[in-house]
């Protein structure tokens, strides 16, 4: 660029370190200390993006987190690119690559800009209204709308960066390192309170840091010099931790706060590697002091969105902090005193100020007088009615305001300029306060919402609490902090402060133009392109609630959450609807304050740390033997063991046949195991299971069904009586934790009188299950001394035994219907016992089988799986398991519910068996069942819950729940599928060995 837009002397920019970066593919240069925004402005680049709806050219408007326009995509690596970042917050680093969003093919020539010419045809909610009908076309519309509505690109590959989470506990958290935050933090720390001060910028000081003006002095120094000395002393203050580049994202109840610290975003590309990029701090603070300051408001007038229109205070910051001139001929437009500070700064730095347009009649404050003394021209009681220039502002049109402020009068003056600074007053940043549940009040005098009531131990100080004058900021911050912390800090009591006072205040939410509103474009939400016209239209169309208007017009719904001009939307709504702003209220400010990366949210919980994986003691054996695994809760369970090129079906058929023909071996370690001890253990089981337990002999096992209090089946499993007062309960794999919690709940809250102790021992024992006609022979090889005769060791009993001098428990129980044993042994020995059984079984072709075969085998026997054949709506009666409900017991969990009017209905869905007409046809689990096919609408009377092809029966079998199913046995039904209808017959649930002969085979 030919123009030199840098001023020579600047303390915040390191002019000795030049940094190269790319914007939209073009290499540019800035200095260390620049933000992307300041570096672009120094290169005279204002146009950085296109607006969302009309694709109007947009430029940098602010210098902070409220930026609505300068939203860029950073990085072009498929794993490291980040959309929607604010150029005003990106610290410049060597190698930075950024590009404009929402434009195609380029920001300078954007095809979507035709929308701007059609804008009269695109009112609020245009998309909702137009693309409603016909409904089936929506898929088509959506494709094109999404394509044209670009809000950046998501990375397509996993994020390579490292993110962190940490906890932080402190007595006092101070949010915001401006002048009030510094005073508060120092006061707290000096009084021995463990204090943390955070600020989102790379250094402390806020706006006072570069406030060098005769009108603002403390103890005879410029306010910035006084503050600089204060900051220098901070390093020596004990009990104080300072975190810069740290943004408070969320403020929850109980003073729980989330803050994101940027650790490497400002580093050069080659320095970033292998470092933690961002850290999310989870903060618990006893007390919170919010000192987040205020942000300047724009003004709402015709064509107020052109590149080159910048908040007046931001122009000042770009000049005083970054040493960058936003233009060479700058005009200012204001309703308050702060624009004069900018005018004076510009004038002092040799930038020509065309004029200040002020909507007020006249004012005589200290700072205005100073500006007048410098010869700055002021248009009193005037407004900007229009701006010109497509990709950059080149002139403004000024007219006098009428006495009531509702219209304009007199002659139009045209003023050439290359930048327009606007100031509509100040909005306290109350976002965090309201996030924490605080209630706001409205101050009519300068139209601001202020913190009012909070349930938490917190205060707001400084300009976020509505103090805008330097002397008030200091005085009130000191007093509030002392009172809040119950301390008496005198360090700031006798300061001599000079501060210009704003005397006259005037505000017009929507400034008038010489053209009717319909012909103007006064933008309210710059990112989402909603205008004052849209908001008024919404009100005309009957929207009253501010929350509805917001959603209808999308005002405040961009990535900036409308930080900049929500207040104007509220003001215009209140005015149009004729209500007071204080009564209208605000929309809800929701966390995060600025967008958080997903990386920061998930921290280290990615990849293998995403969730816990539980593995059984025999897991490695399964891996070595090529098992496929299935996830059951957090467990990895062997699913099937394919040999060679077998697919799942082939493997399961082979495994199932082997288990019934000779022997199978299953890893049952994942079943939940609860050790139950105490003198009331039997009574306890009586109360939690539907069947009776008192008479169960020591050494015997029993199957139990557990209900919820509503009578629905909750879990099932076999429980063994190990001794008089000692039981071992097994639960389903997935239900283990919940069953334990439920039992604990009853013990602690309903039956504290019972002497019962529960211990989860799931992980302590590994379980090897051997089944099949040869299982007895195999076990006798593994444990030679054990008497396995049916008399000594019958079905549903248990024995203590030794395997190589190690104690184990052997249960003769069966989930397959085969003669079967389960060996429970301390986990560390389980793998070797498994291998021992496998070796012993070799001569019988013992076949390892997984969960799929287990499910098939039990389905042949009609055994249910709680959670697969039940779904929280099945009673034991529905399952045709009436036999397990004790008639004698006075009470058990769920008993009373079994004869409620709803549970005794005959047409409840009940568990039945299904056989297909074609025995080769396998039903799909979840398929619906109907009684007739030609009725419309067709009535679904049930669905398939389990379905397999049984190699032992050579036919397809299924379990299903069907309305009134018990009475429908033998009836033909239909299972309509996408391409055919399958004929089925309702049968008994037991398909194989109804007499249970195999158990004792």
């Amino acid at each position, binding site marked *: 660029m030919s123009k030199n837009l840098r001023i020579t002397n600047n303390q915040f920019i390191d002019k000795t370190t030049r940094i190269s970066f790319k914007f939209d593919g073009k290499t540019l240069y800035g200095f260390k200390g620049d933000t992307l925004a300041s570096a672009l402005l120094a290169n005279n680049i204002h146009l950085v993006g296109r607006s969302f709806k009309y694709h109007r050219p947009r430029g940098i408007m602010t210098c902070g987190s409220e930026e609505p326009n300068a939203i860029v995509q950073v990085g072009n690596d498929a794993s490291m690119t980040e959309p929607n970042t604010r150029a005003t917050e990106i610290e410049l680093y060597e190698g930075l690559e950024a590009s404009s969003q929402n434009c195609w093919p380029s920001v300078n020539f954007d095809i979507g800009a035709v929308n701007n010419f059609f804008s009269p045809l695109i009112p609020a909610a245009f998309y909702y209204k137009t693309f409603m009908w016909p409904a089936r076309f929506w898929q088509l519309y959506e494709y094109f709308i999404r394509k044209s509505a670009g809000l950046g690109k998501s990375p397509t590959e996993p994020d390579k960066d490292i993110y962190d989470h940490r906890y932080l506990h402190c007595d006092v958290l101070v949010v915001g390192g401006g002048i009030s935050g510094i005073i508060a933090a120092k006061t707290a720390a000096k009084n021995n309170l463990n204090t943390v001060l955070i600020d989102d910028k790379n250094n402390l000081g806020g706006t006072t840091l570069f406030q060098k003006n005769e009108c603002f002095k403390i103890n005879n120094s410029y306010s910035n010099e006084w503050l600089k000395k204060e900051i220098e002393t901070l390093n020596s203050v004990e009990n104080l931790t300072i975190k810069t580049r740290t943004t408070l994202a969320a403020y*929850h*109840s*109980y003073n*729980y706060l989330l803050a994101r610290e940027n650790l490497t975003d400002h580093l050069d590309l080659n320095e970033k590697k292998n470092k933690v990029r961002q850290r999310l701090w989870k903060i*618990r603070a006893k007390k919170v002091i919010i000192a987040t300051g205020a942000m300047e408001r724009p003004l709402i007038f015709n064509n107020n969105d052109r590149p080159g229109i910048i908040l007046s205070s931001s122009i000042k910051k770009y000049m005083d902090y970054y040493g960058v001139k936003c233009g060479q001929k700058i005009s200012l437009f204001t309703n308050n005193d702060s624009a004069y500070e900018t005018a004076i700064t510009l004038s002092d730095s040799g930038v020509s100020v065309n004029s200040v347009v002020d909507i007020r009649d006249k004012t005589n404050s200290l700072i205005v007088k100073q500006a007048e003394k410098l010869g700055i021209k002021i248009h009193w009681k005037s407004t900007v009615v229009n701006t010109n220039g497509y990709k950059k502002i080149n002139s403004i049109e000024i007219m006098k305001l009428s006495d009531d402020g509702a219209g304009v009068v007199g002659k139009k003056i045209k003023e050439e300029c290359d930048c327009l600074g606007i100031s509509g007053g100040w909005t306290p940043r109350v976002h965090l306060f309201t996030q924490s*549940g605080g209630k706001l009040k409205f101050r009519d005098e300068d139209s601001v919402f202020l913190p009012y009531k909070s*349930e938490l131990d917190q205060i707001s100080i400084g300009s976020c609490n509505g103090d805008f004058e330097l002397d008030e900021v200091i005085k009130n911050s000191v007093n509030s902090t002392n009172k809040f912390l119950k301390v008496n800090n005198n360090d700031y009591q006798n300061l001599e402060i000079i501060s210009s006072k704003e005397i006259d205040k005037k505000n017009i939410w929507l400034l008038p133009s010489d053209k009717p509103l319909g012909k103007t474009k006064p933008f309210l939400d710059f990112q989402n392109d909603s205008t004052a016209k849209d908001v008024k239209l919404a009100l005309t169309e009957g929207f009253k609630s501010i929350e509805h208007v917001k959603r209808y017009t999308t005002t405040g719904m961009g990535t900036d959450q409308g930080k900049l001009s929500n207040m104007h939307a509220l003001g215009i709504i209140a005015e149009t609807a004729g209500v007071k702003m204080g009564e209208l209220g605000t929309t809800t400010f929701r966390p995060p304050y600025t967008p958080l990366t997903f990386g920061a949210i998930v921290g280290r919980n990615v990849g293998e740390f995403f969730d816990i994986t539980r593995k059984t003691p025999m897991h490695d054996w399964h891996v070595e033997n090529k098992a496929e695994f299935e996830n059951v809760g957090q467990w990895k369970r062997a699913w099937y063991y394919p040999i060679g090129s077998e697919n799942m079906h082939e493997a399961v058929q082979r495994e199932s046949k082997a288990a019934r023909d000779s022997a199978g071996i299953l890893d049952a370690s994942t079943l939940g195991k609860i050790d139950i001890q105490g003198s009331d253990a039997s009574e306890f089981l009586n109360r939690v299971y539907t069947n009776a337990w008192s008479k169960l002999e020591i050494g015997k096992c029993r199957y139990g069904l557990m209900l919820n*209090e*509503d009578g629905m089946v909750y879990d099932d499993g076999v429980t063994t009586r190990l001794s008089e007062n000692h039981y071992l309960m097994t639960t389903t794999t997935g239900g283990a934790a919940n069953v334990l*919690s439920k039992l*604990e*709940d009853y013990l*602690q*809250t*309903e039956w*504290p009188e019972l002497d019962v102790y529960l211990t989860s021992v799931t992980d302590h024992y590994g379980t090897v299950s051997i089944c099949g006609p040869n299982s007895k022979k195999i076990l006798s090889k593994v444990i030679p001394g054990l008497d396995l005769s049916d008399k000594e060791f019958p079905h549903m009993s248990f024995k203590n035994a030794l395997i190589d001098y190690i104690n184990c428990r052997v249960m003769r129980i069966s989930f397959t219907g085969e003669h079967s044993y389960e060996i429970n042994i301390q986990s560390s020995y389980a793998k070797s016992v498994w291998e021992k059984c496998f070796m012993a079984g070799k001569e019988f072709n013992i076949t390892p089988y997984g969960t799929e075969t287990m499910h098939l085998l039990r389905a042949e026997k009609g055994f249910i799986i709680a959670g697969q054949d039940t779904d929280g709506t099945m009673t034991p009666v529905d399952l045709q398991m009436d036999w397990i409900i004790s008639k004698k017991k*006075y*009470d058990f969990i769920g*008993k*009373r*519910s079994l004869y*409620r*009017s709803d549970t005794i209905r005959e047409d409840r869905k009940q568990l039945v068996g299904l056989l297909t007409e074609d025995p080769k046809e396998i039903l799909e689990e979840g398929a619906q069942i109907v009684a007739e096919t030609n009725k419309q609408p067709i009535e679904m009377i049930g669905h398939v819950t389990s379905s397999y092809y049984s190699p032992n029966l050579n036919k397809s079998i299924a379990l299903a729940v069907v309305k009134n199913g018990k009475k429908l046995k033998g009836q033909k039904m239909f299972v309509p599928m996408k391409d055919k209808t399958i004929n089925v017959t309702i049968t008994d649930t037991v398909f194989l060995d109804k007499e249970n002969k195999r158990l004792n085979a």
Partner: protein
Amino acid sequence: MFLINCPYCGERDQSEFSAGGEAHIVRPKQPTELSDDQWAEYLFMRKNIKGVQFERWNHAHGCRKWFNMVRDTSNDKIHAVYKMGENPPIK
């Protein structure tokens, strides 16, 4: 996120706890003698008020003990925690 003062362990983060619904609902001693309506009252009916509420909580990722809590649902202030079986310290 609350900070809950477990009566057994002291102040802990809410993430260690699980909520268990309304407190002081006693399981009927003789359910079989209740009518459908009376049983349904116990089984299904729970208060959900704006204001001070008595709740059951479990220190699920801690001592696993159940206890009671008095919480104002309008501002999440916890007025008291007390052990199971104890009477509420406030009305």
